């Protein structure tokens, strides 16, 4: 019982942690969704040599453990003269990592669009940019929503690893409370509860998109 009380006394620390986790994940989404779309367009449209190079880069990023990537960005980049605050280093590594996955998700979703659909757009004189804006991306938004939702939840979880590079996100906060209040369990349980809430919110968003898909696609 006392652990719960202690956690409540430290609620400001938890709120600060949640704020950092959310700002990192949101910032990461704002950057990586457009980057992921651009990357997928590049994987679809760019001339072959460039496309292969880019595909290798994406594969490389996807096989690096996230923790290692965060280390490289936070401890490695200063050697090249680029020193980032923990939060910014966290944002950069989350964004890089997440973009690599989103590129593949979007590319797969592009491939899933019926070929004749795209052909019809070409036959009716839609330009490349209209084709993407009006035909491909709206369909991708609907069909890829569940996978993207999953990816967001993964990103929320990955962000916990950023405590290693001293980002004051939710896991960092729980650890801080646990250490300072000598409460081994409740602060972490509280953090789990808060992570769960965030994931449920994402799930709710995905379910809305899913309903939209059912109305339109049957």
């Amino acid at each position, binding site marked *: 019982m006392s652990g719960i009380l202690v956690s409540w006394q430290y609620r400001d620390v938890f709120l600060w942690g949640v704020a950092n986790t959310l700002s990192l994940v949101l910032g990461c989404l704002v950057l990586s969704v457009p980057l992921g779309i651009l990357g997928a367009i590049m994987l679809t449209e760019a001339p072959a040599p460039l496309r292969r190079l880019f595909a290798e880069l994406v594969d490389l990023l996807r096989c690096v453990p996230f923790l290692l990537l965060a280390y490289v960005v936070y401890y490695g980049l200063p050697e090249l003269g680029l020193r980032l605050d923990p939060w910014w280093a966290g944002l950069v590594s989350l964004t890089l990592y997440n973009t690599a996955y989103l590129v593949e998700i979007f590319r797969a979703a592009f491939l899933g669009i*019926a070929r*004749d*659909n795209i*052909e*019809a*757009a*070409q*036959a*009716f*004189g*839609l*330009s*490349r940019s*209209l084709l993407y804006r*009006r*035909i491909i991306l*709206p*369909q991708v938004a*609907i069909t890829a929503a569940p996978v993207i939702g999953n990816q967001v939840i993964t990103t929320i979880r990955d962000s916990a690893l950023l405590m290693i590079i001293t980002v004051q996100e939710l896991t960092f906060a729980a650890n801080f409370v646990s250490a300072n209040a000598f409460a081994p369990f409740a602060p972490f349980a509280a953090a789990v509860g808060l992570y769960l809430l965030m994931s449920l919110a994402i799930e709710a968003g995905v379910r809305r998109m899913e309903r939209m898909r059912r*109305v*339109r*696609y*049957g």
Partner: protein
Amino acid sequence: MAELEPAISARGVCKDFGGFEVLRDIDLDVATGTTTCILGPSGSGKSTFLRCLNWLEEPSAGDILIQGKPIGRTGLGRDAKRMARNELAAARTSIAMVFQHFALWPHLTVLGNVAEAPVHVLGRPRHEVEAEGRAILARVGLAEKADAYPHTLSGGQKQRVAISRALAMKPKVILFDEPTSALDPEMVGEVLAVIRGLAQDGLTMVVVTHEMAFARKVADTIVFMDAGRVREVATPHDFFANPQSERTKRFIARS
């Protein structure tokens, strides 16, 4: 009054896929206001030829002209430069197409499908296009489906939406690629009736089809293709009553 310039002409169109000649030196003029039906056995190159007319397939040689203006290349002949993507897109706005498998955009409503290209490609005001779109849909018997999504429609209804989408562009020519081949038999009639109505209104159409009775009734010109060549160009009466080649006779006898 008939225009002298054909709505579409194909001159010496060839197409090969990896060394295999699918189309061999095809010439064809489609006069404005007429319906041309292209008949022929499967694999004769009918659909490929139709798709060359709006450059969905790039001919290996030959020219396509829409009312005298080349499409796909900026001039005539093999050496003429390919059109840039946006030029080709602009040229395609005067040729609409109806596909065998409808190819409606599933994320847009019926009216959304009809209005999409006029609004976004031609840049016309949406309210105006939608009013016209509703009138077109009413004409093909789908007024009450304007706000439905394509997946809720039957095949025949989908194809009538696809025809409405083509009409909304007010094109110079409409190309039909086997418009009834993917339909259940009882839905073929409703689609053919719509196309027949358009023919009576004097639209210029090129229809690739297996529906012989339809071609006989509706076509002004029948083009018979076999093995990548045009074997015969005739009026329906001459084509069916007095076929010129043995190949044509066998084709008519079998169908």
